């Protein structure tokens, strides 16, 4: 079973290169930053963080696809990175949402503008 084989015909002159994927990942990352910086609800901020982590995963996988070792063998270190990022994202989402629910229990709000007890 050959991996990475393209089954379809090629289109002359057009191709999808690493830059395409990096730009897409960059756009999704910046949308994630916009969401994380500008939303009021803590859960919405968490959604932005998840988008950022997804963009990072895409970057890793794109680099793995388009690169190889010095001696010509292929390397899947990027995929291993992505496995760890997935793991950490899942763990962090669970704990962050548990904290959001806990904060809601005390203060009856998850509005980040109102959670300002530590302000000066």
């Amino acid at each position, binding site marked *: 079973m050959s991996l990475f084989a393209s089954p379809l015909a090629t289109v002359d002159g057009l191709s999808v290169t690493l830059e395409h994927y990096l*730009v897409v990942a960059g756009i*999704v990352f910046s949308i994630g930053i916009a969401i994380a910086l500008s939303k009021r*609800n803590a859960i919405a901020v968490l959604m932005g963080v998840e988008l950022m982590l997804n963009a990072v995963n895409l970057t890793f996988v794109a680099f793995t696809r388009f*690169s190889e070792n010095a001696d010509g063998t292929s390397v899947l270190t990027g995929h291993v990175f992505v496995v760890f990022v997935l793991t950490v994202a899942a763990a962090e989402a669970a704990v962050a949402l*548990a904290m959001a629910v806990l904060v809601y229990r005390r203060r009856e709000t998850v509005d980040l503008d109102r959670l300002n007890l530590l302000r000066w």
Partner: protein
Amino acid sequence: MESLGIIAGFWLLAGVTIGASLAVFAVRNLLHAVVFLILAFVGMAGLFITLSADFLAVAQLLIYAGAISVLLVFAVMLTPLANRDNSNSLYVLPGGAFALAFATIIAFVAIEVDWHQLRGDALGARSFSTTVAEVGSALLGPHVLAFEIASVLLLAALVGAIVLVHEDETGEAA
């Protein structure tokens, strides 16, 4: 990566992912935003498939679209008195401007730097059989320490999440 299928797939999936991400920012209802986030996750999984990362695509679907999305919906449901209109705080304009600047910088760097990437025939079939086997060997080989630490991290997160929301019989929270 010159085949018609991958090109069409990439543009379609990239459009879906970016559109869904913009929708997460723009819709007025928090639950609709979660649904669009799920669509973004699925689009990402499709992009992984165009990059021939089959294991990661399925893992992304399983973890993000299957589990984290359910977590998010549960969190939205367990906070009924919070405002769910996905409104923006005061920092929307600086945040948006910063995000735009960041996207421009990343796009500039991505396009201008010579990444020494593989092109054409060098992107053909590889010598190993499955990504799963390779990732598995790597996890139990060179990266075994990170693997073990990740399992401890998951255990800590599991126990932590349970302890955080646990209530005693008297109703005392953690």
